[in-house]
């Protein structure tokens, strides 16, 4: 496994509550999974993916969790073109 260096921007994951520890009266499909937190920060020690480690968040708090992603990024987009929207408000629809 590759070692990820101290100071790298990563995302960790922590199980906050196991299914048994979760709030009462949840719908069964929600109750079936643990309550999970993900947060990004700078690694405070060298660590491997999947390993328990500590990060320092952007505001300087130290949080523990399993190293999940190196250099977490955003890739959300405008989505594939939805043809149903294209002609709204055009001559084709009498505007």
């Amino acid at each position: 496994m590759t070692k990820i260096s101290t100071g790298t921007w990563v995302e960790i994951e922590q199980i906050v509550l196991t299914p048994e520890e979760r709030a009462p009266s949840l719908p069964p499909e929600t109750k079936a999974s643990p309550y999970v937190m993900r947060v990004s920060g700078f690694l405070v020690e060298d660590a491997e993916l999947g390993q328990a480690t500590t990060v320092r968040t952007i505001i300087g708090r130290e949080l523990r969790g399993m190293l999940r992603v190196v250099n977490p990024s955003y890739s959300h987009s405008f989505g594939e073109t939805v043809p149903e929207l294209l002609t709204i408000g055009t001559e084709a629809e009498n505007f």
Partner: protein
Amino acid sequence: MTIHDTSYAAVMARKNEIMKQSLGIDYDDYVQSPIAFDYERMMAETGYTMDDIRRIQRETKVGDTPLFELHNLTAAVRRISEPGKGATILLKDEAANASGSFKARRAAISAYQALIKGYRGMIAATSGNYGAAVASQAAQRGLKSIIVQEVFDSRGVGQPEIVEKGRKCEAYGAEVIKLSVGPELFYMLLRTLEETGFFNASLYTPFGIRGVESLGYEVAEQVRTRYGKDPDAVVITHAGGGNLTGTARGLLQAGCTRTRVVACSVDLSGLHMASDRDFNRKSFTTGHTGFGVPFATWPDRVDVPRNAARSLRYMDEYQLVSQGEVFYITELLTKLEGIERGPAGNISLTAAVTLARQMDEDQIVVVQETEYTGAGKHHNSQLAFAHANGIEVRRGDPVENVPGKAIVIPEHLSQVQGRVQDMDKLRRSYLKNAAERLPVAEWSGNDFEFLAADIKKDVEWVRNQGVA
């Protein structure tokens, strides 16, 4: 440092103590019974005047947003209306606030309060525009911020709209705690408040709601200056109730006592809000009935002991619209008016089309917000995501919309009709919820007066509902 028990039950049991520490408000001061509390005194004792609020907001790029007349949309509505009908539609461009939505008004006052009370940072639990607003205002006041956000289902999949909101919070320097689906969001908020000692920038404190009052006040000023009269109706997207409460209070402070206050939500009936499965079957993450109805019929279900957002106190009507209708109107706004805005901000615009059609040509209906748009927070990405999650997307009659199953986008403006929610049913539901907190036999005269004011009726009406 004290080591606290962080089990769900233990943290929830420390709720009141954590709230007192993190807000600097002792709600016990205002509570009169399990039902009633001194609402107006609580709002007044924030200590801010309207001038203070506007000055504080100007310091951090909030308020004084433009009010646009939507000439082309108004003309299009008149073409499908009976002769003499078709009110002028005005749009308050709240996307112009720092962070891109009206939520900046709420966050501005909370950030100022946190600063003067000596807190080092502020925390909010929200998957909405409010997170970015808190992060942006905190950044300007030199405060740290943490946003606690419900983001992904058990497959790790998040709505593009929420993912974008998380990105925006991080862009302003906030720590974003991203969580899986569940009502334990509140538990996580309490834990984080306790760990950090930060200010609780709850959406439902008097500071947050007072911050929205400037919005109603500006609407009144701008309409009077330009049209020489008061707005006939103001349409307000309704979820937790703060937008409606704050705006209506601002209108009243400006003296607009005859303006109709119209709530509007996207109808998502049938979808469960705490369900891991339904989470990604909603194409709106806010402004929908999953919040709007429960918050109207029992406001005190929030992260503070008594909610400053009390929508039924100010609401005259409640319009429901379908997801397909809002997406249609969002596209129409872009094509006809040449401005691209986020779909959630256009919920009230959709209802305004229905209302304008029923109103006289010389009347004015104001849509009091817009929100920013961009990757993720765009009707195309929401619809593409819905399609990828097995939801049918097609053109047709919007009455065929089925939340979580089919999004039917109108084929023509005349099909944008919405439907009316029965206000008295909501009021009775509120009274039933009150009766669960305190048996009717124990309601005092003061409780009756509080309840009547809280649903905009008189004591006699409350007594005649069969609940009381």
